[in-house]
């Protein structure tokens, strides 16, 4: 491949006009655990697989879905440590915005600032792109919103999206199942069914995580007991 000579340096374009490192970062995302998000008419749900490397890992200590602000939450596919760094930076940006304008940061603003950080790491010396794609779910004055941010720094607003290992199957499933007037509980059921599609092994409240935000504008991660209830309803 003629591109391979240009794949070592992030800040060099290949002859085909791509930054090969970013392509590789997207591959890293694509081999991460599946995560997805659905925007309902009255809220947003995000969910992810939580496959731990061994049964000895204390699964209660692992939390993949994180709060950025009281009304914005996020999940990732890809490299966990990169996600931690981005979450920390985003929280700080949200806090600085709040201090400066005394207004909770709108979802689009936070997504834009996070995407800017990710883009900076594709155009600086001595750094590599983040190996994560983020799904940001929030509810502000403009209503429920779902954004996907890629390692290149590009972001899109989605009605429903998936990322990671099972992305094509999951997206096909979502395209069939998504309706504009879905309610939040329907969306949670659909999210669980979508995760089930490509799930290896038995799905349970111990190996998936679900986060939701409704019209109350409070982002919450569901407890295992609540996930069990939803799983029972889906059966």
């Amino acid at each position, binding site marked *: 491949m003629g591109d391979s000579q240009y794949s070592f340096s992030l800040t060099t374009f290949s002859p085909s006009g791509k930054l090969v490192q970013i392509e590789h970062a997207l591959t890293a995302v694509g081999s991460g655990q599946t995560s997805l998000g659905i925007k309902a008419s009255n809220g947003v749900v995000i969910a992810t697989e939580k496959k731990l490397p061994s049964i000895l890992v204390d699964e209660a200590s692992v939390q993949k879905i994180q*709060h950025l602000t009281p009304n914005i939450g996020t999940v990732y596919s890809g490299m966990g440590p990169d996600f931690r760094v981005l979450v*920390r930076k985003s*929280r*700080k*940006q949200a*806090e*600085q*915005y*709040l*201090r*400066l304008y005394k207004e909770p940061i709108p979802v*689009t603003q936070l997504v834009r*600032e996070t995407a*800017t*950080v990710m883009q*900076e790491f594709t155009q600086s010396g001595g750094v590599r792109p983040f190996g994560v794609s983020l799904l940001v779910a929030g509810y502000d004055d*403009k*209503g429920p*919103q779902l954004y996907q941010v*890629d390692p*290149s720094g*590009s*972001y*899109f*607003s*989605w009605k429903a999206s998936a990322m990671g290992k099972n992305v094509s199957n999951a997206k096909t499933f979502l395209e069939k199942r998504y309706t504009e007037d879905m309610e939040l509980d329907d969306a949670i059921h659909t999210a669980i069914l979508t995760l089930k599609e490509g799930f290896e092994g038995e799905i349970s409240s111990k190996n998936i995580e679900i986060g939701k935000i409704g019209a109350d504008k409070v982002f919450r991660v569901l407890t295992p007991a609540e996930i069990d209830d939803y799983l029972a309803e889906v059966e």
Partner: protein
Amino acid sequence: MSQSAVDVPPKGGFSFDLCKRNDMLTQKGLKAPSFLKTGTTIVGLIFKDGVILGADTRATEGPIVADKNCEKIHYMAPNIYCCGAGTAADTEAVTDMVSSQLRLHRYQTSRDSRIITALTLLKKHLFSYQGHVSAALVLGGVDITGPHLHTIYPHGSTDTLPFATMGSGSLAAMSVFEAKYKEGLTRDEGIKLVAEAICSGIFNDLGSGSNVDICVITKGNNEYLRNYMEPNPRTYVSSKGYSFTKKTEVLLTKITPLLERVEITEVGEAMEE
């Protein structure tokens, strides 16, 4: 990285670069702007179930009352509140800043903030400014280790006490506490004592006045009783109202709106890769 107006100043506290210019200006006859002080009475005490904070509501600018009903009890965390005396801008800014830092810390640790954390963040900041940040604070709250009450002085020293007073009315309020405080007060007894101490400051100190604000913090709960007592109501108000002769006309045609209301229809934003 994105620049914002809240970036931390370069390490080392204030930069005194403009002092020479200011000296030159005062010599030439320019009066330096005065700052709004909260000649104040602020108090706190620990009672059976937690902490009660109290404050008056007068903000002074020299001999003039600038704000008859200002808020001196500042929010730091859901379980921590802070009363501020001294220069109003300093107390506002410093409590705001530490409140922000505490919030970020709570996200990182997934735990409630501790009063000792707020105390240390405040005293570090005040010490690094060597007393130039004129904020005298009474910090109180209830955390996992129990109820705590501290005082913080502008130079950065702190005390840990069962009952405390600060501000120009602190002596008046302390006399009430010293006479009547005992351990294990109930909530109502505590509120009554705090209100009495603040009233003592309001009536005996010129720098304090107007109303009493109270904040009760217990485990898992806080109650901000704004204007709990209003012992200085305006007694004589003319029922006929007041009429002032119009000296200048306000021309409605000269008022131009700054913002136009625009209806936004699209919700999401698309971005080309």
